């Protein structure tokens, strides 16, 4: 076993083995390193494993001691003959053990446990020196691709003592495609350039080693720097030696930005006008036009309502869901400042019909769920773990968890005539909630902030909104700009976008800070975030990599293409073919990006196959963005797609009948699909295809008008099935 060699290899342990073995500082870390107290083993919630329970990652030594030494009539430890202790018999695999052999009898870990048993299993929580900090060396390092680095972890105790705990610490890279960390703390850099962080954990504390992996290619020229984003992205590219691709063509930009802001393809007329315009600021102007269009509001409302769980469980949910979706959409249309939007959601009171954000409290009923959703969605902090135990990679404790929960402790509910819907109001009283562990009342506090004494008459949720919207809040603005960055760049500066923590640093920290600062200073103006991103050269880089930057996955040296999401793709096919998809209860012509809730997925194989989310989670990961065989087959063969091609009065039908020269018609197709002119070889292939005579099943030549129509349907089909159509690039 690897562990064995590691433990033996650690000289510091050998040096210390003579001293008294500490339960808190030796035994528990050995159990942690060996994986005994992982969530899958003896720390499994509720019952542990096979009757033996340990606290998760050893966060509760007192409890572990009770379980280990006193429970089961003390049969797990046998001080008189340590090797006969159940603890060691099982751990070393000498007795049948579901978890297999975890400790080699020759290992240092085994020796430590044995020594502790021999000492009479003392408990030293009070006397053992308190761990106060963890230090990893090096904390920051520039490493070449395919290189290695050994980390050294030092624990610092309250009594001033330090100890090398490298062998007992746990190591994990935040991007396993970039670096691998072994159990002994040896980091192996793979071949992707950029920034990667290796998290080191030891007894509830965590430290990070930030590794910068330069590509080292010459960066001779940079596209024009249009704002602070470019300055910071290009500075990073220069530093790590990744030359960026050039700025993309106008046509590519137009299609890209229309899809990203408005969730739709440009129309032929728009593409024509934009391409022929010679205005130097036409890109900025296009961004502005898109931002003022209702399409922007529709598209981003689609994003937010799924995350806010606007989910149809019963037919009677329709009113609440339509109202809530519309509230989000109208707020975005009015460009309501983000802090106000969140405030109105968090502190909603009244009835759904009178104040639609109240619908959120219909979906998310428990205070724990409320705080978890709010933390993950608006602060980018995942608090779920801290409900039951100290967060394993974070500073958040159960106290922090219940302090946040306390903001939601004074929500009053009165039933309405609609089953399942309550009137929400602030119930007068002291805001506080019980810490499930300590059974003590906890008052509200923002994460990392001091406890608040909120008078009984004040709605604590308003104070939570105050804290979140405070300019100094370290999470609120960052979480949003990171989420929006990912929307436009496929990858967040922090990944996953809603897992902001010290141990998961951003790939470009200066940029994240600058974006957050810009957002706060704009007065939480969501359109300003979109504007500054889409106007940057970084956003406008070509998707085609140059000879060096093809390996780049996180430095934004070129545009990372992504498949159109389900709704956008369906709308794009409708727009391209001239068909209209019918959705229950909604006017014909309603676009898929404007659908209010998940109920439409049931009736649409298309939306399901392409991964439209069900609104079950606050995580954007619920939306499937990957490509699959089912998707390809659907596009090629499904009846609904075929019916769209053959829509009466649709594009194929119209072009087949139109009295226009074929080249003009082919040009229209390319503008409609790709927002660009056809190239000469494309033009030639299309013309040849259209001119080809066609026969029916019996081999009889088809009449020319029917033949032309089939030819146009085929052409549309072929264009839809290109990567250029399916991807935003």
């Amino acid at each position, binding site marked *: 076993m690897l562990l064995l060699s590691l433990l033996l290899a650690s000289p510091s342990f050998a040096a210390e083995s003579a001293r008294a073995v500490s339960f808190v500082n030796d035994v528990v870390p050995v159990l942690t390193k060996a994986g005994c107290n992982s969530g899958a083993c003896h720390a499994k919630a509720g019952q542990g494993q096979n009757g033996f329970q340990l606290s998760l990652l050893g966060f509760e030594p007192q409890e572990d001691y009770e379980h280990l030494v006193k429970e089961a009539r003390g049969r797990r430890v046998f001080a008189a003959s340590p090797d006969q202790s159940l603890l060691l018999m099982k751990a070393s695999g000498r007795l049948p053990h579901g978890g297999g052999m975890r400790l080699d009898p020759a290992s240092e870990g085994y020796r430590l446990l044995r020594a502790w048993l021999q000492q009479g299993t003392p408990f030293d929580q009070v006397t053992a020196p308190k761990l106060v900090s963890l230090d990893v060396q090096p904390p920051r390092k520039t490493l070449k691709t395919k290189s290695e680095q050994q980390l050294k972890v030092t624990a610092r105790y309250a009594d001033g003592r330090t100890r090398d705990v490298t062998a007992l610490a746990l190591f994990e890279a935040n991007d396993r495609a970039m670096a691998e960390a072994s159990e002994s703390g040896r980091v192996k850099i793979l071949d992707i350039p950029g920034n990667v962080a290796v998290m080191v954990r030891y007894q509830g504390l965590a430290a990070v080693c930030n590794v910068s992996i330069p590509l080292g290619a010459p960066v001779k020229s940079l596209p024009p720097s249009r704002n602070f984003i470019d300055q910071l992205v290009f500075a990073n590219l220069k530093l790590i030696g990744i030359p960026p691709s050039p700025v993309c063509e106008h046509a590519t930009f137009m299609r890209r930005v229309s899809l990203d802001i408005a969730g739709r393809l440009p129309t032929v007329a728009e593409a024509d006008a934009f391409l022929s315009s010679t205005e130097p600021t036409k890109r900025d102007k296009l961004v502005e036009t898109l931002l003022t269009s*209702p399409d922007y*509001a529709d598209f981003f409302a689609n994003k937010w309502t799924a995350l806010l769980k606007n989910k149809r469980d019963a037919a009677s949910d*329709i009113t609440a869901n339509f109202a809530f979706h519309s509230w989000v959409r109208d707020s975005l249309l009015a460009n309501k400042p983000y802090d106000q939007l969140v405030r109105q959601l968090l502190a909603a009171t*009244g009835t759904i019909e*009178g*104040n639609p954000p109240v619908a959120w409290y219909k979906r998310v009923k428990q205070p724990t769920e409320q705080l978890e959703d709010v933390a993950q969605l608006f602060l980018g902090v995942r608090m779920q773990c801290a409900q039951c135990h100290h967060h394993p990679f974070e500073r958040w404790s159960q106290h922090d968890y219940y302090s946040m929960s306390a903001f939601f402790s004074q929500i009053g509910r009165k039933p309405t005539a*609609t089953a399942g819907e309550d009137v929400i109001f602030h119930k*007068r009283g002291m805001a506080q909630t019980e810490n499930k562990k300590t059974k003590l009342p906890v008052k509200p506090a923002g994460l990392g902030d001091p406890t608040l004494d909120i008078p009984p008459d004040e709605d604590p*949720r*308003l104070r939570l909104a105050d804290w979140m919207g405070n300019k100094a809040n370290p999470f609120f603005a960052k979480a949003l700009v990171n989420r929006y960055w990912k929307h436009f760049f496929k990858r967040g500066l922090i990944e996953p976008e809603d897992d902001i923590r010290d141990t998961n640093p951003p790939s470009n920290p200066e940029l994240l800070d600058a974006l957050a600062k810009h957002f706060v200073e704009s007065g939480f103006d969501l359109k300003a975030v979109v504007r500054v991103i889409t106007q940057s050269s970084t956003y406008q880089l070509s998707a085609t990599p140059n000879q060096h930057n093809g390996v780049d996955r996180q430095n934004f040296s070129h545009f990372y293409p992504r498949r159109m999401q389900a709704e956008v793709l369906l709308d794009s096919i409708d727009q391209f073919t001239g068909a209209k998809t019918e959705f229950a209860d909604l006017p014909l012509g309603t676009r898929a990006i404007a659908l209010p809730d998940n109920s439409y997925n049931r009736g649409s194989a298309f939306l399901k196959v392409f991964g439209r989310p069900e609104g079950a989670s606050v995580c954007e990961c619920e939306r499937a963005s990957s490509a699959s065989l089912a998707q390809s087959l659907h596009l090629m063969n499904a009846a609904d797609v075929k019916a769209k091609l053959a829509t009466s009065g649709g594009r194929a039908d119209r072009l087949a009948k139109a009295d226009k020269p074929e080249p003009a018609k082919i040009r229209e197709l390319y503008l409609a699909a790709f927002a660009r002119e056809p190239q000469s070889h494309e033009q030639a292939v299309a013309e040849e295809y259209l001119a080809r005579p066609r026969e029916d099943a019996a081999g009889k030549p088809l009449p020319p008008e029917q033949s032309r129509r089939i030819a146009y349907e085929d052409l549309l089909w072929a264009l839809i099935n290109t990567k250029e159509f399916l991807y935003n690039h």
Partner: protein
Amino acid sequence: MSPKSAASIIAGVAWFALASSAFAQQVILPTPRLLTTMPMGAQVGTTVEVAITGENLEEATDLVFSTPKLTAKPKLGSDGKPEANKFVITVAADAPVGVHDARVVSRLGVSAARAFTVSKLAEVTRTTPNTSLETALALKPNSVCNAVMSARAVDFYSFTGTKGQRVVVECATAGIDSKLTPVLIVADGEGRDLVVNRTSGLLDFTPPADGKYFVKVHGLTFKGGPENFYRLALQDVAAGAAIPRQARTRSVSSFSWSPAADFGIAKTTDTEPNNAHAQAQKITLPCDISGGFFPAADVDTFEFSAKKGEVWWIEVASERLGLPTDPFVLVQRVEKDGDKEKLTDVAELNDIPPPMKPSSNGYSYDGPPYDAGSADVLGKLEIKEDGLYRLQLRDLFGGTRSDAANIYRLVIRQAAPDFALAAWAIHFELRNGDRNAQSKPIALRPGGTMAFDVVVIRRDGFAGDIELGMENLPTGVTAAALKIPAGQSQGKLLITASEKAPRSAGVAKIVGRSQINGATVTRPVQLASMTWPVRDASGEIPKPRLLADVPISVTDAEGAPITIAPRENKIWEVKLGEKLTIPLALTWRGEFSGTTLKLRADGAGFTAAKTPEVALKAPTAEFVLDLATLKPAPGEHTIALYSGYVSKYRHNPAAIVLAEAAQKKADADAAAIAAEAKKLAAEVSAAPAEKRAAVETVAKAASEKLKSAEAAKADAAKRMKAATDAAAPKDIADIVVSEPIRIRVLPSDKK
């Protein structure tokens, strides 16, 4: 009205018929209901033609209103005969602007009401579909358009905007009985949305530039159809001026507050900033303050001095003004210690509790679906110590909403005891979520009795008895009412049409009378009803409102299926501890399903009475009251017996006779014309060439006449079939309520 829109309304009626037949068994006997009028309002001093639709409105001869300033006559066709379901309304020049109740008097009596608005604005009625930008209907400034929402569609309107000239677009719906939850959008000249409102049907818009703008209207969930009518008003409003709102019907909760209430106290206003204790606005008691819950999370803090032993009554009206607010009052005593203040809670005043517990859910029946309570405040403040006090008023729904329209009136007064009363028809049992019966009008059948809940909200410590009664009852109609006993909040009212009551229709009054400080005080009982007959409350929440008055009618078309009455019309006396046997007479009209009626008793102290089970068609029964077990309070009681039953109801069989006669005549007419046409046709072939043209012309005319006669014949046959089908016996579940039984309970002889 265009034939198209008329057709769509007729289609709507057909839909209703379908909806009701979808249930295996219809609940309650046919009652006349006016469901829609088009238009839904008219300008003062004008005459307009309206088309109506409804249920059970055969022989609708009159359209009547809750104000005499609105009068209507049937619209006469080109043949001088009244056109079905069309009336011409004349609005007097001095007609009060506002919402009035319209009702139809028909074969079965007076119908349920529908709101009809009298406005000052010019009125138009949409006549052609406007569901696209291209077909947008141009609105004139300061006008109202009457329209019906199209399902799964958006209605488009356009107007010409002037830069900086504020306009208010308002869509009246729920306030005029419509089922539509409106969404209003103002869009630019290319139809791109600029501003949207989905919660209050109001948009206050100042155009950023001169040009054409669009107004889009649709339902929140894109519902449409005849029940989803609306009045869209476009008004120019000066900058800074108050927003004019279209009139609305009154909510049930508002019966306990009159907007005109005057307590003889000088009026003041809420002066901001007064959110914090340090900014408290100084007042002296009593006071009558007008204020607003604005901006978001507004708190209005008032400071006053009071002396030990004082008792003040605090009332807040806001929700009862029709606003979506939930006022909350906190009174604290302030003790100062240098710069420090100690605040001690003295009173916490929240909702006005409903005088009768409303149904806990919209499906099974466990109480009336009327909540006569309010989110407003009405309560007592007793001062236990001399000192300084602060009152904080906040809107529990106002944390994040900034709407200056959310106003309130706060009155702190010395006791001014009074009471307010409301009533609604009850049905005792409702099956399968059926709320249909909750909107029945007082359209009585001879021999029938209707029961009502009457509730009271008592003000400022008033606790006395309230005698209930009715005035202006038609001939043959009597009302018996329980007194609402001292301290209680509920009573019952029974309205009975005698078997011989003649046909009539009028407006009565229900009143409550009591003694307050030695004077007799009479207050009206305001009638509440559901605005629509909702058949399935799981799919739609029935919405109630107050009616403008108390219309009442007796039909001569048919009698009540069952009458249950005590054999003698007298006060039955009984001593506590003894038994009383009351012989009952039962009259049965028509056929019934089932075998027995299981009677139950209603009336405080008697609901647990052992009641008889009566075999169908039995002419008599005995009701034995055992006052050894019941123990009601000594004194006079009015009680009633009731039961559910299923009748094999025949709808308007008289119509068959008429339809049959009409069919015979149509058949005969057609036959005669056919013979004439045949004769002329023969003449044509026989006619000499020079006369043929003239004969041919005559023959052609005859053949045309024949065509229309054949059509009339087919129509008559169709009507005959419809009448026959309607009159076929059909199971209908309803309740029968006995005539009132008056009992005087005497104290027991035993000491």
